[in-house]
Structure formats: C-alpha cells, structure tokens
C-alpha cells in the first residue's frame, strides 16, 4: 500500500512518476505494469477526493489496467487505439518528468534570491488631471459588466474529464469480458492443450490469480470439478 499523503502529489502523472522513480525504474511499458497495482491501490485512498481530482487519476488508471492485463496475459489483443493510449502515457510521463526536473532547477535558482529590480513606473513624475475624452458613466458600466461576466466560478468542473471517467467503468467491464473470453478457450477443457500452449495456460492462470488478488475479478466454483466462473467484483 502506498503510504504517502495525497497533498504531496500535484496530479496523477506526478504520482505515477514518483512510483516509477522510487523503484529506480526507467519509463517504459514494463515498469508501468510493475507499478500499476500500486497506483490502483492508491486510488482507493482517493475516494474521498473531489470528483474532478479523482477523475484525472482514473483516466490514467484505465491505461495502466490495459498495460497490466497485457503483461500478465500476452494473448490479450489490444485495439490500435489502446496501443496508442499506452504509447501516449509513456510519452506523457517522460515529458512530465522532463518538466518536473526543470521546475526543480527553477526553484533552486529562485532560492538564490538574485532577483532583479525595476524602477517604479513613472517614479518622480507628478500627476496631472488628464481624463480620456470619451469616457462616460455608461462606459464604466459596460466595463464592469464585462469584468463580472468573466469572474471565475469556484466549482467549474471541466466536463470532458468527467465524461472520460464515466467511460472508464465501461472500459473496465469491457476489459473483463475480453479477459473472460481469452480464458474461456484456454480453460474450457474442450480442446486438448498442446505442449507449446502450456506456457500460455500457466501465464493465463497466473494472470487470473493476479487479477483476483487485485480485486478486479472474483471466481466461483460451486462444486468440486465444476466450471470455474469468473465474475466482476461488485
């Protein structure tokens, strides 16, 4: 379980980068699959956070689940779009790392306090009454309406992020289905398992256990030798 407090992280990329770096890993698909469990476990601690905050973490969690599932179950076919998502997450994390390092450097430079100072504008200039000719009370009213119109609302929630978070649930359901499908031909017992497929069976079974351990899936065997049923954890 990840013990650090949320306040330490400025966002999901920050959290993910921290996990990868803590293991002294470089950023790639393998390292991301290694920290996926940890990341997803951490999300559970975030349930109390604001909807938007949670949403941005969930979007990345969905890609991590894909990575994890594939690492455990190589037979799982990913769509082209999902492949792009995985590559994109890697690139984003690398870019984020780059800027984070720069920001630490900037912070260091700021701490040196070698600030440069300007001269106060118009210092020493005496004031003289010179109103703009066209100004009127009506202009002022128009200007203040403009100001009021663009005042930020405290609870502005960007809708696209929330939408993406909603679709995450669908994605999880869909992924589960594909995993079940992928298992069904392996474990159905209808086909004889060839030697070269045995490795796949073992890997798949490990994957199944891993996913159950993570709480993604539960399985049920009503009687000894009955079919094993895989269910989504409710």
């Amino acid at each position, binding site marked *: 379980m990840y013990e650090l407090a949320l306040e330490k992280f400025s966002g999901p990329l920050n959290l993910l980068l921290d996990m990868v770096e803590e293991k002294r890993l470089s950023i790639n698909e393998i390292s991301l699959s290694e920290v996926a469990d940890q990341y997803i476990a951490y999300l559970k601690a975030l349930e109390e956070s604001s909807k938007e905050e949670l949403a941005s973490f969930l979007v990345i969690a969905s890609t991590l689940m894909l990575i994890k599932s594939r690492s455990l179950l190589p037979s799982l076919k990913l769509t082209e779009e999902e492949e792009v998502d995985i590559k994109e997450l890697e690139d984003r994390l690398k870019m984020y790392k780059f800027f984070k390092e720069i920001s630490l450097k900037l912070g260091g430079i700021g701490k040196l306090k070698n600030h440069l*100072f*300007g*001269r*106060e*504008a*118009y*210092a*020493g*200039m005496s*004031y*003289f*009454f*010179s*109103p*703009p*000719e*066209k*100004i*009127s*009370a*009506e*202009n*002022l*009213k128009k*200007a*203040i*309406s*403009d*100001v*009021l119109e*663009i*005042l*930020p609302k*405290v609870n502005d929630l960007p809708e696209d992020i929330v939408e993406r978070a909603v679709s995450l649930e669908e994605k999880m359901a869909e992924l589960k289905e594909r995993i079940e499908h992928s298992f069904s031909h392996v474990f159905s017992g209808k086909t004889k398992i060839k030697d070269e497929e045995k490795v796949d069976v073992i890997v798949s079974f490990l994957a199944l256990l891993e996913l159950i351990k993570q709480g993604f899936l539960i399985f049920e065997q009503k009687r000894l030798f009955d079919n094993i049923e895989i269910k989504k954890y409710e």
Partner: protein
Amino acid sequence: MNNLEKNIEALLFVSGEGMSISKISEIFGKNDGEIEESIAVLKDHLEKDHHLAILRDGDRVSLVTSAEASKTVEEFAKEEFSGELTKSGLETLAVIAYKGPIKRSEIDYIRGVNSSFMLRNLLIRGLIERVRDPKDQRSYVYRISADFLKFLGITSISDLPDYGSFAQKLEDFVSSKSTEVQG
C-alpha cells in the same frame, strides 16, 4: 566606477524618491564623507555618459533624468497619459468606481491579473487617488478622484448606473476569496 559607486546607483535607482546621505552611509557601513565622494564620482560619470543626473535636496539625493532628456520624457508622457484608456485600464477604473475604496489585492483578485502598473497610470492621470486604509493604517486603498467624478458629471459615486447591484456582486465575489485554494 567601483563596486560601491555602482551599488549606490542601483540603490537610488530602485528607491525612486531617493535617500538621505546618512541612510546610505548606514546601509554600506561607511562614513558620510566616503559616501559623498562616491556620489561625486557617480555624478561625474552620469554627466559624461548618460542623460541621468543626481538631484540634491538638502541631505537627500535621488536619481533623475537630466535636462537633455526632457524633450524625450515629455514626448513619452504625452503618449502615455493622453488619449483613451486601454481595455484593461478601463476595467481597472470601473472596478475602483463600483467597489472603491478598494485594496490593490482585491482589484487583482477581481480582475485575475496584476494591476500595479495600471494603477500607477491611473494615479498619474488623476483619475484615482490612493489613501490610507481607515481599517488598517499600514495599507492603502484606491478610490475615484473628486476631479474625475466631476468630469463624469455626477455628484456621488452611487449615481453610477446600476451602482447597487454591481457593487453587491463584486462584494460577493471578493468575500468568497477565503475559500479559494492558494498555489
């Protein structure tokens, strides 16, 4: 110029209104005579190579533009302080009109940008004035000047169109400030 002379100049540059010799001596840990000598060197250098000068007023010295630059400076002032206000100038003025007397931090908060430069401009043009905050003598508040009010042809600020409702909306926004997350 030596290091001390350069630093005295930099100090006068940022201080705006200038400083007393004794204050400068104290800052650099020198006696007044040494500071006077440095200022003499600075003065000579400025005369030779710059259109800046040392202005002496009793014990006080300040850095100013010299007479040779006066035409340039006047030209600049004419450009800067005549003609219509920019959109952001007008907005700043409107916030002060409808919400004044108001602190600079509140103006910045409402407009969502730093207003210090704009305030200087409006002050020099005599459209607003800066007074001590009656609630906190250490800070300042801004309000519309009497000259400008007269220019608008109204006798009281509350005669501005829809004054009551706009002032209230601004007040509501400013009082929500404490709930905002700080970065």
